[in-house]
């Protein structure tokens, strides 16, 4: 049962349009509608706010501003996870970033609220802010730690000496723009007060953290907060935490004594939800003529919000990827006056591997060695920085299998050497690696007289397949047909998990469920013919408490292969085909696994070719704040793309042998595309995304 390509158990509800997302619950009655009005400056203060016209507007029930918003707790920055901290809104006249809410207008209909929000009259005293990352880079500082508690810097051997003495060198700078998750479902919340109890229908990946955030912001008892998030329209990190919509809905609903729902507009999401930080990265690779690396250096600078420090672990996987005796990685932060940075799918690895795997390609050309072979030559026997064994490293297998299936030996060896009509054709490849995390989780399973097993946890399913894989795990462990298993997740009142994030949700909740089922079976055996309701709980501890995670370096791996066509006259770049081969331990469901991987790969394609949020450096606003101008791939951009998963089982990771894979697909995928563009054209673009204006000047002139 585990591993089978079972169709999603929530599939019929979703394709039937009956799965209720955050803004779509009616059980609490007709809600009022809240609409956010945002600041039109990037930094400064409100000097005057006139709400008279908005208040008189038809249907308006409340206009909340910093003058009448209830007091809320300030965030406690000693709490490591930013998503557990208090998140006060409308808490003063100061404006910290463009688009910051200055008012919430609540009315009987959406149309009334939206219209009245435009009538809130605000005057500002603007201050000069810092919005230009490139211009501020010499103000960078070293944070104490980076995301996931990883060290800011690392050093092994003597990098400077090793690099200086290398026979062949690559020393290049790469830059990545602001990227956004932009899940299809906008951030939304509906708050319902029942006495002192607050229920919020939300779209939230980690309910336990969301609940903590709400309780501490509103200064109420944690047990009084109930979050409900049964279906989530995509998250990709952007819903790890709650945002203004949830807090504003809760404040307003308490005031008007009626349910209030608030959704961000697509444009507001660009200013109220954090982007992946823009980066500037220097990669230095030194190798001998045989292609063996003697030095690897990866220096990263990115922006941060001045208060809400956020540092992606951009150079972290560089510490485990290739062997080299001399190594150096560093992360630095440049404060800018914009919203906090947040996790976006594969934080760190996604931009980091774009740079490092591009640099490896540059090294392969400099050496005249096949890029696949170059990577195989630098395969480490042990984790090169932690000096512990790998649990289940299968990168070389992925590389070889991918090369074979893709037909890598057919590649054009020298750049700009293949034509197909008006297209310059190129092949590129890159390696994928991602750290596997394990977090705490509790799951309860109960079996009733009807023989139905009910599984409960505050775990979430944002399209990841949680409902389905938990069905499989329970059916497998209890020996039940899947029709006799019911999964109840997405409620904060259920046993607490670490939710969905960092690709750990599937493994965490599956192991805890597996243990719960084992305990339940023992209870059934001991209950000796006394049929009745029985229940049991299972638990998994965080990786910092698991000895295997100290003793081994536990990762997932993959290899991407891409073929692109570049128009010889216009430099238009089209992906032609792409293949990824992955080693993820045991895949819990073959179908949902492949879907996650191809989804991730598509994100890699667009990181290389499409996505970029562009800043107006006068105000900090993102100028292309909608889905017509912030380009994400559409169907026609993804012609032929597939993912293959190697059979596996990582016995060091956990009892099920499963590891996270929701983010692996994006890791390295963009570099494979970038490398294919170089192979097609001979033009190396290091400033992502690779758009035709950057390629065109370097295109080889076509023969007449």
């Amino acid at each position: 049962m585990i591993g089978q390509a079972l169709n999603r158990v929530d599939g019929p509800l979703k394709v039937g349009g009956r799965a209720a997302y955050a803004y779509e619950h009616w059980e609490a009655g007709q809600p009022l509608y809240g609409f956010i009005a945002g600041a039109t400056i990037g930094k400064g203060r409100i000097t005057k706010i006139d709400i008279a016209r908005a208040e008189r507007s038809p249907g308006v029930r409340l206009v909340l501003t910093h003058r009448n918003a209830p007091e809320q707790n300030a965030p406690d920055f000693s709490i490591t996870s930013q998503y557990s901290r208090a998140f006060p809104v409308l808490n003063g006249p100061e404006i910290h970033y463009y688009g910051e809410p200055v008012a919430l207008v609540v009315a009987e209909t959406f149309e009334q609220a939206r219209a009245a929000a435009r009538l809130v009259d605000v005057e500002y005293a603007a201050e000069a802010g810092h919005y230009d990352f490139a211009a501020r880079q010499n103000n960078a500082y070293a944070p104490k730690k980076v995301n996931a508690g990883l060290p800011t810097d690392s050093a092994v051997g003597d990098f400077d000496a090793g690099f200086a003495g290398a026979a062949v060198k690559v020393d290049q700078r790469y830059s990545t723009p602001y990227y956004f998750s932009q899940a299809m479902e906008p951030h939304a919340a509906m708050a319902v007060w029942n006495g002192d109890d607050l229920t919020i229908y939300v779209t939230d990946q980690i309910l336990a953290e969301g609940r903590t955030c709400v309780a501490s912001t509103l200064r109420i008892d944690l047990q009084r907060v109930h979050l409900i998030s049964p279906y989530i329209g995509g998250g990709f990190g952007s819903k790890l935490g709650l945002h203004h919509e949830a807090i504003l809905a809760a404040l307003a609903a308490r005031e008007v004594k009626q349910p209030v729902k608030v959704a961000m507009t697509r444009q507001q999401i660009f200013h109220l939800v954090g982007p992946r930080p823009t980066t500037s990265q220097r990669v230095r690779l030194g190798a001998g003529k045989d292609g063996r690396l003697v030095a690897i250096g990866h220096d990263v600078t990115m922006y941060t919000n001045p208060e809400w420090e956020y540092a992606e672990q951009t150079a972290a996987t560089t510490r485990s990827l290739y062997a080299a005796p001399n190594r150096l990685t560093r992360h630095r932060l440049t404060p800018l006056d914009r919203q906090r940075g947040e996790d976006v799918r594969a934080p760190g690895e996604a931009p980091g591997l774009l740079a490092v795997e591009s640099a490896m390609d540059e090294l392969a050309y400099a050496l005249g060695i096949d890029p696949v072979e170059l990577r195989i030559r630098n395969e480490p026997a042990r984790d090169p920085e932690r000096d512990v064994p790998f649990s289940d490293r299968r990168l070389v297998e992925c590389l070889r299998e991918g090369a074979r299936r893709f037909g890598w030996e057919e590649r054009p060896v020298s750049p700009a050497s293949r034509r197909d009509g008006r297209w310059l054709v190129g092949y590129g490849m890159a390696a994928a690696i991602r750290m596997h995390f394990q977090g705490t989780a509790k799951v309860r399973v109960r079996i009733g007289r009807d023989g139905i097993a009910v599984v409960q946890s505050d775990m979430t399913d944002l399209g990841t397949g949680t409902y389905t894989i938990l069905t499989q795990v329970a059916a497998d462990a209890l020996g039940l047909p899947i029709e006799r298993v019911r999964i109840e997740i997405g409620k904060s009142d259920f046993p607490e998990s670490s939710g969905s994030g960092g690709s750990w949700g599937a493994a965490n909740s599956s192991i805890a469920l597996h243990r719960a089922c084992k305990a339940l079976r023992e209870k059934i055996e001991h209950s000796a013919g006394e049929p009745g309701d029985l229940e049991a709980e299972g638990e998994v501890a965080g990786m910092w408490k698991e000895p295997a995670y100290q003793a081994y370096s536990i990762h997932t791996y993959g290899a991407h292969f891409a073929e692109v066509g570049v128009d010889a006259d216009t430099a238009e770049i089209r992906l032609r085909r792409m293949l990824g081969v992955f080693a993820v331990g045991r895949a819990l469901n073959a179908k949902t696994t492949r879907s996650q991987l191809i989804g991730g790969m598509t994100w890699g394609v667009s990181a290389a070719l499409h996505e970029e949020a562009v800043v107006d450096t006068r105000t900090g606003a993102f100028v292309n704040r909608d889905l017509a101008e912030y380009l994400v791939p559409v169907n026609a951009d993804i012609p032929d793309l597939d993912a293959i998963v190697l059979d596996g089982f990582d016995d060091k990771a956990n009892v099920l042998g499963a590891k996270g894979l929701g983010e692996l697909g994006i890791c390295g995928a963009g570099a494979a595309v970038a490398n294919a563009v170089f192979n097609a054209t001979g033009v190396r673009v290091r400033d992502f995304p690779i758009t035709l204006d950057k390629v065109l000047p370097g295109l080889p002139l076509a023969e007449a």
Partner: protein
Amino acid sequence: MAVSSNDVKMKSAGIGIALTVNGRAHRLELDPRTSLLDALRELLHLTGAKKGCDHGQCGACTVLVNGRRINSCLTLAVMHEDDDIVTIEGLGKPEALHPLQAAFVERDAFQCGYCTPGQICSAIGMLAEARAGWPSHATVDVAAEGTTLTGAEIRERMSGNICRCAAYPNIVAAIRDIVEGVHR
């Protein structure tokens, strides 16, 4: 054809219209600013049609109006007097899915499911357009009789529907199953 009728009045009512949704006649009293999408979602509680952008840029709100696909966020409800509207809820029920809905499940043509009702309604409209011989940007010979729905044609014609989970190859596979008459 109407089988029963249902009156809904909005708090900020202004204009009355009559229209049919999923075979059921409705009289709606609504604010003239209300989009067809919001009328379906907030008045009729047919939340299968999704709001992804409210700006005609994502396709999540796609429904069928008199058999043609339309971004329901880009049209005002009051413009649909006497129109016949079909939403995802009208195509099939979870226990009795339309063949295309079933193909989406079988091919795992979605993850989060938020773009999915729009994809399915869009695909149904698209198949009708192809049957009627409408060409697309991917059509090699626009003068040729009939349309062959190649992979490239399907991808082009479905590019008004963004799927951020990026189930694109699976969406194309599900639609092909219908085109090729694969019944599972």
